[in-house]
């Protein structure tokens, strides 16, 4: 599938993960790349964008034995946007599915 298609969707997937709990970058990247075929590095620019747009904030947590983890936490703005985008996306997918299956 076209990479541009995927990027917009991945943003929504990242938001859905963060809506449940705070996650760190590598964790998000791994979860996404296990399910969707993209290069591992692609998630980080997306996280950066979400932060720049004020949808998430970051905080650092030290771990024993590993590198410090940059955790991402959803802001109220992010939550609001995610809720509306989620609904829009599900409606959209439903419509596309109906149109494609009608062939």
């Amino acid at each position, binding site marked *: 599938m076209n990479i541009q298609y995927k990027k917009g969707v991945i943003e929504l997937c990242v938001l859905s993960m963060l809506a449940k709990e705070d996650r760190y970058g590598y964790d998000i990247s791994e979860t996404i790349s296990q399910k969707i075929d993209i290069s591992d*590095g692609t998630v980080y*620019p997306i996280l950066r964008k979400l932060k720049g747009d004020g949808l998430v904030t970051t905080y650092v947590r030290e771990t024993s034995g590993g590198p410090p983890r940059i955790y991402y936490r959803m802001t109220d703005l992010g939550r609001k946007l995610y809720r509306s985008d989620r609904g829009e996306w599900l409606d959209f997918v439903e419509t596309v599915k109906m149109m494609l299956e009608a062939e």
Partner: protein
Amino acid sequence: MKRNEFIVILTKRLNEQNVGDIDEIIAEYEAHFAYKLADGYTEEEIAIKLGDPDELACQFVAVERPKKHDIGRGLLVTGLVFADFFTGLFFILLAAWTMVIIGFAFASAAIGVAYLIELNPYGILPPMPYWVGAVFAASLLALAVLSLAGSLYFGLYVKQLLKAYGRFHHNRLAVSAGKPVLPSLRAYPKLKPRENRLFRKVVLGSLTIFALCFVLGYIVASITAGTPGFWHAWNWFV
């Protein structure tokens, strides 16, 4: 490609493109290498799976917000203070105009009521037969309703404009501080459909009554006085 090479290229490209807070970006990729190495992957494998660092740098550039601190914060604040001062004056003027229209509405209503109950303190109102006065009174009362509705809408308009300006003010400061920008607000008030219909009805109704009664009053006055210049017949300006 080895880990060092990957990081060096990425850092260099991000630097060239003026991307902010590069350390955090690099920290993420460093961490990625560390986790994958611990899982037994080689540096080359990890670099390949991450993707081309040049291309990744471009993706960061693409999502970067427009560069902040273009003008100094001091200059921005000075500019905003001036803008606030002049828009402040402007808003005082708009608010004062709303007051004037409200005053006008009450004056119209008072004169209308005075003609209806035949009250003419100190003889300040031009004399006319009761029924002529009553028709003009209806016109004046409709004018009062019309101006009151107008001043209400105008007041809402000024309030919304003030809010929109406040948001603009907030966002300029947020941009200069690198904080997220809130969506701008519309510059006109939005009534609920029901309020909108009611407002429209009141405005159209009062405008019609005002215009009809004004013309009717003129006609009735002319007939009663026997001349179109009825003010002469009733010695208004003597």
